[in-house]
Every structure is written in C-alpha cells, then in structure tokens.
C-alpha cells in the first residue's frame, strides 16, 4: 500500500510535465530507477534519496534558480537492455530534453557512453561505470567522480597495508577478491593485479555468478586458501550471502572489505550480529543529521510528499542517491551561471559538470557540511578527488561509522591504467583526444 502511495506521489510530482500545466521552462531529469526485480532493495533507497533531494529543491526553492525540476522515472530493473530503452525514450523528453543521465548500472553506462556524445547529454556514473572515463580528454560526456573503482581498490590496499603495519608488510600476504561476475565486478581486477606486482602480495580473484544466491564453492576456496584479507565487489543478494558465508566460516569481519556498493544496511542486516566489524568503502557519511535531510523531512515528508519511508532517510544508499542529486543539481546551477540562462540543455550541463566545484563552504550552504569530500572537476579529470574512506558496521548500534580518514588513491597505479584504457577506447572507437588547454 505504501508503495502504491509512493508511486502516486511520484506521479503527482511529475504531473506538471505530463499535463503541461507549468508554463515555465522545466529541467527534465530522467531517473533510471530499479524499484522492481532482484536488485530492487538497493535501487529503491538510491532512487528515493535522489528524488527526494531534487523534489525538496522544487518545494523549498522552486527548483534550481527558479527553474523547476521535472523528474521522469523509468524502470530498468537493473537490466541493461531496459536501461538503453529508457535512455532512448527519454533523451528528448520535454522542452529541455534530458539534461543528464544517472544510469546506476555499470552495464547500462557502458552502453550509453557512445550514445552520450552523439546526443550531447552528459552521463554521471557516480563512482561506477567505466573507470577510464575519468580521462575527460577521451570521455568528454562522462563523469565518474568523486572516485573510481580503481582508486577505491588502491585505497583498500593502502588500508590493508596500514593495518598490517606498513606497505612493505604486504609482501607475501594473500588478498582475495570475491566479485560479481559482470563488467562491474571485473573493474578492479587489473588494478589489484598491478598493486600485487608493486607490493608483492598474492592476489586471487573469485567470481560469483549473478545473482549470487549460492556461493558455497567460493567460500570453500577461501577456507582452503586462507587469504589474509578479502575484498568484495558485489551487488544485491550477493552481498548478503557473502557476509553470511564469511561469518559461517569464521572469517574475521574486520578483514573483509566491500566496495561502496557492498556496504549498505541491506547487506549486513540479514547476517545479524555476525556482520559486526564488516568494512566497506565510502565517500559520504551515513545518517540523517544534516540540514539537507531536515529540509527533506520538513518540505516533503511533513507534507506527505516523500518518496520513501521517513525512518529510512539517512541510510547509506539513500544518502548515496542524495549526494548524486546534490552534485547533479550543482552542475546544472553551474551550467546556468556559465551560459547566463536558466534554459539549459544537456550540452550546457556538461559544461557545468566540467567546471563543478563543491567545496566545504558550499557544502555548508547546502546543509551538508562534513557530509562528503569537496570536489573539483576539470576538463582532464572527470574523477575528481578520487578519495575514499572506510566505514564499519556496528551491529549492536545498527549503524555504519566512518572509521578512517579519506585516503588519496595510488595515482602511480591508476594513472597509467586510465591512460592505457582510455587510449585503447579512443583507438577502437576512432575518438580524437581533445585538448584541454
């Protein structure tokens, strides 16, 4: 029933677009959601955080610089084909056309990358998608800040080094990667292989097929090989099963690190107390003790306009959606500033992304002081700061806590890999590297 209500609310919020009631120029922002299917438990909180933040801007500020945002949801079910269909159906939506796409799927992102430059619509694959899209000279239409999977992998290696007593202590250690057997899950492998060469640890990669409901063989191999640390690049049910399996074989949770997509409340709650101490990457704070969250409650939930449940505001994936919406709206604001008009199109928003700077002062103005890292995007660097911290699950308190500072990635590893991969993409797709001077 609550879902039905949410759907009606979402429909009502998008009604002005459909009915054409609003005469002012509207900023069309399609949302590629997945509220159904096996990955829905993760897709829903992200979509709620993303939508709530933008709806809050509409309710509180009348949109961005007075131009209302029109959210147009499209259900992908985390299915690449459906995601591409959504893109094709929505790219020319409304007067503005789609201003930006947030695919929330590495598979969909890979398919949209070549289309984006033709249609002149930026793709914001926040912390996922093709890592080498960090190279803005080759991928002018794709942005993957605030950090890539490769940066994150090197941060995990540094964290492990620190916990072991220094990077030199990594020599002879064994690190396993349990990964979703998909384009997404395979992303960090090359980076970790390079890191293994550099620091002398043994690296083993263990794939888990979609959806990951059954992983016994994988964890038996971990029992046999006894790696010192395990990393996980999982999504959906794979995360929950992996954490339970790890607990079952008595693998120490504080030596088990998940990618930031393997570190939500959904992932740890089914394992109960056994998940205590489990680590994951993070680039924003958990919780709802921020001005933006209070505004969302005041302007949306108090009026019955919220997309989700009030008590789930501030969950990790909700905040992930929120931070994505915040950066996106700031890029649109920047685009308006650069081009001196509220009637921006996708190509203008791309310029906004490329000149985006959200520093600590701006975060404070947005009611998100200390919520995430400051970012600055440039023509060359679409990854931004690349900094990643680690968060840890406290099962007793039932919450995530950031337990490390933000680490700088090992750019001596990621830099050449990004250059190599983007050059290969440019060669294969006849893309001429642009100048950023």
């Amino acid at each position: 029933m609550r879902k039905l209500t949410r759907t009606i609310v979402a429909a009502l919020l998008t009604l002005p677009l459909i009915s054409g009631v609003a005469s002012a120029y509207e900023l069309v922002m399609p949302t590629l959601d997945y509220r159904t299917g096996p990955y829905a438990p993760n897709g829903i909180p992200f979509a709620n955080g993303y939508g709530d933040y933008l709806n809050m801007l509409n309710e509180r500020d009348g949109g961005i610089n007075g131009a209302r945002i029109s959210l147009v949801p499209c259900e992908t079910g985390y299915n690449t084909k459906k995601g591409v269909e959504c893109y094709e159906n929505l790219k020319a939506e409304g007067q503005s056309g789609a201003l930006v796409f947030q695919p929330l799927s590495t598979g969909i992102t890979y398919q949209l990358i070549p289309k984006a430059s033709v249609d002149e619509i930026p793709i914001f694959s926040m912390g996922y998608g093709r890592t080498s899209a960090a190279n803005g000279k080759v991928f002018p239409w794709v942005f993957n800040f605030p950090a890539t999977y490769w940066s994150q992998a090197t941060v995990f290696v540094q964290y492990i080094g620190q916990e072991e007593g220094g990077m030199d202590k990594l020599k002879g250690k064994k690190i396993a990667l349990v990964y979703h057997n998909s384009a997404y899950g395979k992303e960090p492998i090359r980076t970790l292989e390079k890191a293994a060469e550099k620091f002398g640890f043994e690296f083993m990669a263990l794939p888990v097929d979609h959806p990951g409901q059954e992983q016994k063989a994988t964890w038996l191999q971990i029992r046999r090989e006894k790696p010192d640390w395990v990393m996980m690049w999982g999504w959906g049910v794979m995360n929950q099963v992996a954490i339970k399996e790890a607990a079952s074989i008595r693998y120490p949770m504080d030596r088990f690190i998940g990618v930031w997509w393997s570190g939500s409340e959904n992932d740890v709650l089914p394992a109960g107390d056994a998940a205590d101490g489990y680590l994951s990457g993070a680039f924003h704070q958990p919780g709802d003790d921020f001005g933006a969250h209070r505004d969302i409650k005041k302007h949306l939930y108090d009026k019955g306009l919220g997309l989700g449940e009030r008590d789930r505001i501030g969950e990790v994936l909700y905040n992930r959606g929120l931070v994505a919406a915040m950066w996106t709206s700031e890029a649109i604001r920047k685009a308006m500033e650069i081009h001196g008009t509220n009637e921006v199109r996708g190509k203008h928003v791309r310029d906004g992304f490329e000149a985006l700077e959200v520093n600590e002062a701006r975060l404070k103005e947005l009611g998100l002081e200390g919520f995430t890292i400051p970012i600055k995007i440039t023509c060359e660097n679409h990854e931004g700061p690349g900094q990643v911290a680690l968060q840890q699950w406290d099962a007793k308190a039932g919450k995530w806590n950031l337990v490390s500072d933000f680490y700088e990635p090992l750019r001596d590893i990621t830099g050449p890999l990004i250059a190599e991969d983007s050059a290969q993409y440019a060669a294969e797709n006849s893309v001429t590297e642009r100048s950023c001077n």
Partner: protein
Amino acid sequence: MTFFIEVVLSGLMAGVMYSLVALGFVLIFKASGIFNFAQGVMALFAALTLVGLMEKFGFPIWLAIIGTIAVMIALAWLIERVMLRHLVNQEPIILFMATIGLAYVLEGMGDILWGSDVKVLDLGIPQGASDWMLDSFDIYIEKLEVFAAVTAAILVAFLAVFFQKTRIGRALRAVADDHQAALSVGISLHTIWVIVWSVAGIVALVAGIMWGSKSGVQFSLSLIALKALPVLILGGFTSVPGAIIGGMIIGVGEKVAEVYVGPFVGGAIENWFAYMLALVFLLFRPQGLFGEKIIERV
C-alpha cells in the same frame, strides 16, 4: 582429503536446497503435466507473506506459518478458478506460458503487498557453521543446510505417504496417469488441481523459508528456480525421489567442478556446469534418472 569431503558434503547440502525448489515443480508436473514456471516466484511469495504476517501484523511464528499456508491454499484455488479452468485440454506450451504470466502477477502482487526491501527471516532455525564439525573434524557444514536436509527428508516421507496411502493421493496418481480415465471414474480434475497446487504452495513455503533464512527474503529468491531446472532434467520431471537424488548429484557436481576445475578456467562455472551435467545425463536417459519413459505409438 578432509577438504574434498567438505566440498562433497557442502555439495550434498546445497543440492538438497535445490531439491526443495525442484519438488514443487515435480508435484505440479506429475499431476497435471504443467511445467510451472512460477514455482520460484511462489517460493518468494510464500516467504514474503510469512515475513509480512510476522512484521506487519505481529503474528507469532506458528500463526504466521498457518496463515501463509492458508494464503497459499487460497492462491491455489484462485489459480484454478481464474487460470487453469479455462485452459483445460490446451497444449502444454499454452499452460506453460500461462504460468509465465502467473509468475509476473505473483511477483507484482508480492511487491505491492509486502514491498521490495530485504527482509530478515528469523524463525529460530540454527544458522552458521556447525561448531562441533568445525572444531572436531575441521569440516565446514552449514547448520541451516542440515536442517533443510532433515526437513526435505520429512517432506518426502510425507509426500510418499500422501501419494501412496491416501484417497486423495491415489486420485492424484490417477489424474497423473490418465486425465480422461480419472474423469470417467468420477475424480474431479478441478479439485485435484487445487489440491496439487496447494501442496506445491506449501512446498514452496518450505523452500522459501530455507532460502529466505539463508539470504534474507528478497526478490532474487524467485531466481532459485534456475537452480532447480538442472535438477529436474537430471532427476526427471515426475519423480519425487528423483528431485532429491538429482539435487544431490547436481550439488556435488557443481561444487567439485567449481573448486577443482574452476580455478583453471577463470571460475564461476558452477551455474553452467550444472546444466552441462544435466545435458550429459539427457544423452543417456532423456527421461531423467527416475522419470517415466514415454513410449508413443503411432
């Protein structure tokens, strides 16, 4: 050697989990010749209902289980009234397609009624590794899977008695053998269908409980049906013991393959290996290990 034993035992236990899903397919196919594509979704729907009754309505476990059984029986009645009744004498492929539609309807209903979040299912079933096996023999056995194996054994015994010793069971077998002949001696096809779908619903609930306890109740549960398919191919679509034995063979086969062959070919082979194993069996026994050999005379 200990590790090999561990792999085999884990395979056997995982196989039993697959068998629990396969059993539901067998029951319906045996009695009506319908390959029920919705069986995985039925397991999901049953588990969602169980958790929903406990979480949203505060039912104690026993009452929630009874309530869910009642819902699954009502669902069986509804399926018969709305879907099957109108498809009597249709080609098997038509019935199969109808069950595909049913899967979507049930998935949507589950979503609307109970939401899409991951739900923790805690019925007090023991979970985690058996400490005794781990400490005494250094062998990792999941307590939940041992529990599932015992449950499966009880379920099979119950089904055997039900099919062999009860009037309804005999009627079910009669319908399975020959619809027309069964009708001619006064057995109501509609009633039999309601009963068999109800039993399949209860089996789905058991499967949903076991898999839901393992990973939390969530929509990916519907995909466990994919794990049951090779079991059915191998064990035969009409044999209850075949579902159990087939599950164990598939479970052991895929685990041994993944652990010992996987590392040489990039890993993640267990899913397709299960199908390959089933296909190899098909070459020699197209009806599966325990399936009925159909001889058609022209």
